[in-house]
């Protein structure tokens, strides 16, 4: 067994309805080392959230279905575990921060109840002790513990996001899946939440998968980055490699669309076009339609994953360019 806490191989998740099959995740391979932070970057609908839900086996079923693949967590395949074993892992070993704090909390239960629910499930303590621990968790994320008896509607959006984080961290998980933890928040609160996750990670030694479409946040927090497009990982490398030497045309396009302070540019370069419909993915490279380098060879067969330098994988056939 290697030092990988998480090893995802060929994960494929489809949403099957009577009318169509949405191929949300198509053969994703990922590894995550103990204590490492991985950024999962891609645009809306690229399959980021579905991947994270797949790890927890919480893809809504029906219509979602994990079609193929293996997810090794600490050497054991999560997809082969029973539902009751999964329950012991969810919230305890692996927990998730959800993206929309406005809807992620139950409006009719106090925040204290919602945090201590997670604690009571995984630790053998009394409700009073669990409540005390919930109050400690609230203090940890910067909310006064005495507010445990209040309801979600009595908190601001940023505070709700912190409560969601407190729930996720309540049982000191070994792996944290943060699904766009800052997207719903304004910029100042974003910075606070990022600092908070950073600090907690250092304090608790948690491994992290950070799902976002914000490359700035990734640069600040992550050790490695996976760029995901059309349900596939198109480039996967250490942070410095990707930021200094992006190889895949999509990654290059992403960086081209960010303003750069040191270079004076009149216009940003967007990536033209839209993501392909995941219910009707093209053959070959999913990015070919929008790619400036695309040739006929891109539109057929499987595109190989090439390791162009140690630890830097790119899924493209035009790397010589």
């Amino acid at each position, binding site marked *: 067994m290697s030092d990988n806490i998480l090893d995802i191989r060929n994960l494929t998740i489809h949403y099957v309805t009577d009318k169509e099959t949405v191929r949300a995740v198509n053969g994703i391979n990922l590894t995550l080392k103990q204590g490492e932070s991985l950024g999962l970057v891609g645009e809306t609908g690229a399959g980021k959230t579905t991947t994270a839900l797949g790890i*927890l086996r*919480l893809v809504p079923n029906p219509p979602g279905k994990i079609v193929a693949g293996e997810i090794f967590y600490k050497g054991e395949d999560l997809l082969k575990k029973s539902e009751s074993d999964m329950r012991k892992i969810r919230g305890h070993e692996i927990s998730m921060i959800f993206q929309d704090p406005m809807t992620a909390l139950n*409006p009719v239960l106090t925040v204290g109840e919602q945090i201590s629910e997670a604690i009571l499930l995984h630790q053998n303590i009394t409700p009073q002790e669990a409540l005390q621990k919930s109050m400690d968790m609230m203090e940890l994320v910067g909310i006064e513990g005495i507010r445990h008896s209040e309801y979600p*509607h009595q908190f601001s959006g*940023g505070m709700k996001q912190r409560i969601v984080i407190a729930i996720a961290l309540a049982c000191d998980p070994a792996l944290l899946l943060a699904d766009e933890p800052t997207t719903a928040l304004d910029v100042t609160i974003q910075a606070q939440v990022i600092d908070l996750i950073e600090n907690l990670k250092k304090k608790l030694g948690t491994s992290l998968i950070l799902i976002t479409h914000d490359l700035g946040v990734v640069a600040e927090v992550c050790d490695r980055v996976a760029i995901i497009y059309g349900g596939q990982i198109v480039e996967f490398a250490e942070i410095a490699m990707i930021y200094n030497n992006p190889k895949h045309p999509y990654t290059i396009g992403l960086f081209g669309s960010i303003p750069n302070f040191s270079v004076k540019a009149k216009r940003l370069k967007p990536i033209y076009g839209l993501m392909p419909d995941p219910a009707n993915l093209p053959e070959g490279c999913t990015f070919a339609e929008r790619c400036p380098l695309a040739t006929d060879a891109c539109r057929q067969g499987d595109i190989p994953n090439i390791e162009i330098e140690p630890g830097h994988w790119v899924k493209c056939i035009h790397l010589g360019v």
Partner: protein
Amino acid sequence: MIKYIGRRLLMMIPVMLGVVLLVFSMMYFSPGNPEDYILGDMATIEDKEAFREEHGLNDPFLVQYFNYLIHALQGDLGTSYTTKLPVWDEIMERFPTTFKLAVFSTFIAIVIGVSTGIISAVKQYSIWDNISRFIAIIGVSMPTFWEGLMLIILFSVILRWLPSSGFSTWRHWILPAITIGTHSASSVMRMTRSSMLEAIRQDYIRTAMAKGQKYSVVIWKHAFRNATIPVMTIIGLQFGRMLGGSAISEIVFSIPGLGNLIINAIKVKNAPLVQGGILFMAVVMSLINLLVDVLYAYVDPRIRSQYVSNKAKRKNPVAEEKAKEGV
């Protein structure tokens, strides 16, 4: 909260005045004379005239109306033309029967409706869901009198298990309660199903699952509590209506309840009894509605916080400060 209840009780007064005006006018202007029905064919014109004089029926509309209103405001609903008993006593004699039947039927409706509704929602599009939705549609569309008659034919006439009419022992309750209960169970089931389906799709259900909670606990603790408000509304409405007497079922099963009483009073234009009975139903319905609204606040803290006065909200100054800063 108490302030809110008080305000709602005060708001009932104009509603009741409207009910009195409406019912009184309908009784006054509808064709037919009570003395013809009550005294019968053998009565002389003099007898009828004496009856009209005795009950003030020769007075102008407004005089009659205000006479009734002033007495009603003092708690005197008049006396029944037929039995010469006070209307209030007549109603109170019948009400316990109707109340028992309503409670029993509502209990059946909740047990059947809520449980099948939840199962249908959790197992959406399963065979169970399809069967129970099909039965629920039959339940809603089947007229109660027909369902009652069919049950009588099956259980009283063919099987001879249960009595077909009356309301003296608990065995008499079973058929009417099932008739009324299943009818409203169908509506309760459909409402439970749709509001549970909505609740199950919410993000907080996923949050609860991600904590490692059992699905069954998630359904009860997280989904059902959020789904209860529309279900409570419909149960409240049904219960209120049953308290007014399920007239048709009471006639089918010959139950001496409120609905039966009022139907018979309408037949002979027994105006004081009709007016009193309908006013009573209106009060009961308003009180049930108020009770349901108070229950909303109990279930949903967001509604509760609307009722709390500003003074009580300011109880927690630290939290207020923090909230203002948005920290």
